[in-house]
Every structure is written in structure tokens, then in C-alpha cells.
């Protein structure tokens, strides 16, 4: 078929082309709408949603007063049985470097950075958040099996970045409750 022939029966073939195009465009739009609905459904139904509030904190003062002073870092058992973990990232470590939490318990991680941008990622889970200095990151978590998990810093934070690895130790519920009896903030640093 030469170019002239293609043009010869132009209007008929143009119509076919337009129809096929429309059909394809419709399919493409349907795929995209379905994907967006799926994401919305997963977000609302499974409650995997980004943190709703933006909270700020002054990194040059966090070690002096407020939520992130050193004595307040680590895991604490709340009155309702939930656990809150507070941690900070700084070049090139996390405090506490080993986070201890109970299994099968709703946990709220609240963390921030003392200097540059860092990230917390717990391997083998969906726990993954940025630590931006000046802002508080909040992440809900829940572990279904005990054991040790690696927790690397996932964001470049200058030359020592590759050495910034923390750990999460998930232990038995009663063992955690035992250790939490005296109040205070728990960690597994040095254990």
C-alpha cells in the first residue's frame, strides 16, 4: 500500500483510527481512575494514612526542654496499654540506638532530628518516615512477631550516613510490662 492509497480512502480509515484511539483513551482513563480509587480505599479502609498534623519543634533546644530531652527518649507504656516511643536522629546515630517494644501492641513512634535530614526505616516492615529538623514525625506501628529488626537511616546525612544503623527489638508483651513496671523510659541499648 503506498502513501497515496492511504490518502485515497482517507475519510474511512481516519474514522477507524479515531474510533480505535477513543477506545484506547477510554481504557487508559478507566485504569487510572481505578488506581486512584484503590489508593483511596486502601487509605481509608486500612487506615494507612500519612500523619494528619504538621508539628514543629526547635532542634537547637530539644536537648534542653520539651518532649525530646534525653531522659524522655525511649519506650513508655501508657495507661491505656499502648506504647509511645520517642527517638531522635543525629549525625550519625539514633537515640536510643536500640528501640525495645512489645509485640501485638499499638505503638506510636514520635521522632525528630537534632541536626540534618535523616530517615527511619525498619527492615521487613512498612515503617518508613523522614526526620526533618524543625518538624516532628509521627508514625503508627504494630509488630506481629518478636525478634530483632535492623533500622538504618535511609536518607543521606553526610559522610557518616552509611554507619547510621539502629535496631528495633520486639519482645514478649508480659516481659515488656514487667520491665515497664518501675515507670521510666525503656531501651535495649547495651543489651
Amino acid at each position, binding site marked *: 500500500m503506498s502513501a497515496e492509497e492511504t490518502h485515497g480512502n482517507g475519510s474511512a480509515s481516519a474514522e477507524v483510527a479515531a474510533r480505535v484511539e477513543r477506545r484506547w483513551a477510554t481504557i487508559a482513563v478507566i485504569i487510572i481512575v481505578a488506581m486512584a480509587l484503590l*489508593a483511596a480505599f486502601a487509605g481509608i479502609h486500612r487506615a494507612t494514612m500519612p500523619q494528619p498534623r504538621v508539628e514543629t519543634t526547635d532542634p537547637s533546644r530539644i536537648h534542653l526542654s520539651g518532649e525530646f530531652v534525653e531522659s524522655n527518649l525511649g519506650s513508655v507504656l501508657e495507661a491505656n496499654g499502648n506504647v509511645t516511643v520517642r527517638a531522635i536522629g543525629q549525625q550519625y546515630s539514633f537515640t536510643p540506638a536500640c528501640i525495645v517494644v512489645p509485640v501485638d501492641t499499638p505503638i506510636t513512634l514520635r521522632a525528630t532530628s537534632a*541536626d*540534618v535530614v535523616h530517615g527511619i526505616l525498619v527492615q521487613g516492615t512498612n515503617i518508613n518516615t523522614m526526620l526533618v529538623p524543625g518538624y516532628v514525625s509521627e508514625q503508627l506501628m504494630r509488630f506481629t512477631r518478636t525478634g530483632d529488626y535492623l533500622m538504618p537511616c535511609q536518607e543521606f546525612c553526610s559522610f557518616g550516613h552509611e554507619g547510621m544503623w539502629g535496631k528495633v527489638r520486639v519482645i514478649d508483651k508480659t516481659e515488656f510490662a514487667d520491665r515497664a513496671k518501675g515507670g521510666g523510659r525503656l531501651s535495649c541499648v547495651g543489651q
Partner: protein
Amino acid sequence: MLANRKLILAHFWLAFGVFGIALTLGAWQMFIRSPIGTWLSNPELYYRSLTAHGTVMGYVFPTLVAMGFGYAISESALEQRLVGVRWAWTGFWLIVIGSIMAVIPIAMGRASVLYTFYPPLIGNVFYYFGVVLVVVGSWIWVALMSINLRVWRKAHPGAPVPLAMFANVAGSYLWAWTAVGAALELLLQIIPVAAGLKNTIDAGLARVFFSWTLHAIVYFWLVPTYIAYYTLVPRAIGGRIYSDTMARISFILFLVVAMPIGMHHTFADPQVGAGFKFIHSAFTALVALPTLLTVFTICASVEIAARLRGGRGMFGWIRALPWDNPMLLALAFSFVMLGFGGAGGLINMSYQLDASIHNTQWITGHFHLIFGGAIVIMYFAIAYDLWPHLTGRELFDVRLIRTQLWLWFIGMIVTTFPWHWVGILGMPRRMAYFDFGDPAIAPQALSVTFSAIGGFILLTSGILFLVVLARGMRAPQADAGPYRFAIAVHQPATVPIALNTHALWVALMIGLTLTNYGYPILTLALTEGTSVPAVYVGAQ
């Protein structure tokens, strides 16, 4: 037809020269962090190298390719001598000076902030000035593309703008507006601190500004590739563009929806609220549309070529394609990589799925597959296609060209597939080395080794590419004739004004950016007490 061959060649040689250097650095990086090359225990050198690799590959190389190709399109598609040649050379030299200015502090270890900057980390001020000069140089190109089209329109009132030029100008506008995000971050936030005028910076706000640039820049890298899909491939294999209208719609969609989606890069950031994350996620889904339209149109265009060559049957036509044609080979590889990379992109786009791979090696794998794979392989094809017209000599190493394309494809797969895998396992990115002695990390050693091998396959391919081009400069002279672009099956005699001009779409692009970015940026800028002390890199 190409009057300014020297100008275009200068852009391409500089682009591919710096590409060769950055490629070597990349292969070296993968080698020393793999279990086969643990001899280097100096992360500082690694991050210098990483900063240089990213800055060249992200800013300098694709910008120069887009510019060189853009000048070639302007001259050949419009059949009009380039207006503003002197300005074009000025832009080129600004990029040369900017690149040198940026590379010196990088080499000295005073700017290891990677190409994404990461405030409050602050490097040497000349690094940022260098990047600004590169961008300013490219903005001259944007203006020239616009002016050249305007001159042509005056001479051809109402005529349909040739598709290649229509897309080229759309790409240049996209770039101009995309670069504004990083420009604001550099000029308002980083440079004052790097120059010592201030010592605090709002890192959260800076990340939002950067996300404005960081996603749409990918579509700027992509535009030359898509222009090649539509206007070079069908011509090179004897086919026709299935639909000129569909092509124009695709480029317009990129222009409009590529911009207001960058906040999906801040899904895990605490300074952006949930609402805007969801909006940007939905918009990101939308950019799949122009790509889906393109895949359809290009497959149909290729099928036309096959049927003109006597191909028959539902799938039998595929065999009738000229598989020894480098352009077709590049297209096929590009589509395969675009398919895998695009599927990964759909995963990144969803907040829920992103949580499992955010900032892991998966991301590195994803964008290397899209940019280094699907896009760069078409840059090769563009260079091969243009070279005879730029040099007046024939490219005779067709077998070598095929080998080069094959190696690039294999190298990219061997490099990026293991990255995706270890990313799912939670391996963080941007690590100078791993402690493979740790039993929890040891199982990933094999994957990292594969990536390193892939890196050397890519390096080999890159060297072959430069060899082919260099040999092409010394081949016997041959007249390649005028440089042509593919025409459509139904070449339009008139095009609706909306598909022939950019004003409406540029307005929409700016409007959408303002709605999707305006409020978050304003709230962050007005929130007190979020500026944090700068941390100077390499300062003693």
C-alpha cells in the same frame, strides 16, 4: 538543512563527554560498595563521586541533549535558519562555565550534598552558583525556541506547527517552569546561607521547593525521547505516525500534569499534611495517561511500517519489522524498560505502597530504569540518527551500534533488577558501603554484586557509544540529504488552535502548580521557628 552544525555538535559532544565521565564514576561507586571491591574505606570520596554523578546526569547531560536536539529540530522541522545563534552560543558557554564552577568544589570535597542539595547541609557557594549558571544557560535556549517558533508563525500564518517543533517547545516551557522550584530554593534559601549572609534555613520548606523541580524534571528528560518515538522511529523504519493529534495531546498532557505532582517525593515527610499528599498522588496517577496514549500510538505506527513491508496476521507483522535497524532496536529496548520502570512508578505513586520502598534501593532502581534506561537509550538513537547530518559523514559501524544498544539494555537490567529486589528487603540508598559481615545484611551481597557487574556492562556500552561517534567524525564524506521527520498517516492540513499553540496549556500548568503548591508553600513560609542551624559540609 542544518546551518548551525557546529553549535549542535558542541552541545552533543559536551553532553556525551560529561556523560562518559559520570558513567565511569557510577560504575566505580557500584564496584567499591559491592563485596568484590571493599578496598576503599573512605566514604568521603564516595559521596564526592556520587554528587558529581548526580549533578552531571541530572542537570548537565539531559539539558545539553535537549538543547542540541532542540536546535536541530528548530532548523530542520521549521526549515528556517536558527534565529539568535549568538545567544545560543552564550547559553552553551554559560553551561560550560557553570559546570566547571560546580565541579571544582565537588572534587575538593566541599560540596558533597548530592544533586538534591539536602539543606540544612550546606556546601561551598560556588557549587550552587555553578548549578544556577547551567540553568540560566538553558533558559536562553527556552527563549530561543519560543522566538524561533514565533518567527516561523509570522511567516506561515495559521499553518500547523510541525509536530517535532510543537513538542520541542512544549518541553522547553515545561523545563522553564519546572526549574523555578529549585531556583527559588537556591536563590531564596540556600545561597544566602552558603554565602554567609544567614546561618539558619527551613529544611522542610526547601524540600517542598525541590519536589516542585524533582518530578517534572523527569518529564523534561523524557521529552526528547518521546519526540524520537513519534517523529524519528516511524521514518527510520519506513512507517507513518498513526495519529498526529494523539501525539500533540500527549505532549500537552505532559506539560499540564507533569508539574503539580512532585509532593509524592515528600510522602514520608512530616512538614506536608495528608491532604496535599493525596492530591499529588492522584495527579501522579494522571501522568500515566500520556504514556499509555504514546505506547498505543507508537505500537500502531510501528505496525503500519510492518504491514507496509508485507507483515500479516494478528501478531505476525512483528516478524516483518526491520529488526537490524538500530532505531527499532532502541525503541524496543526503551519500551521494555519503560514498561518495568512505569510499573514501579505506579507503585511509588501510591502512599500506601510507597511506605515499603520509600528511599530504598528500589527508588534508585526505578529511576535508573526510566532515565538511564528508557530515556538515555533513545538519546543514543537520536545521536546516531543525527550524526551523519551533523558531520556530513556516514555512520558505518551498524553492527557495533547494535552491540552497543544490546549491552546498554542488558547492563541496565542487570543493574536495576537487583536494586529493586534489595529495596523490597529494605536496603537504604546512598550508602558508601555495607557491612556484609552482618548476618542480617549478608544475604543481600549477591544482589549488590550483580548490580556492580551491570555497572561495568553499562560502562562498556558507553565507551562503545563514544567510539562509534568518534569514528563517525572521520568516516568518508557522504551527503545524508535534508533531515526529515516522520509524517502522519493523516497529515493534518489544519490543526485546532488549542493543539497548535501553547499559551492555554502553559496557563493551565502555572494555575495547577499554584493551586497544588501555593498553599503548602505559603503555610510553611509563614510558620515561625522552623528554620534550623545550617551544617556546613567539609568546613573545618
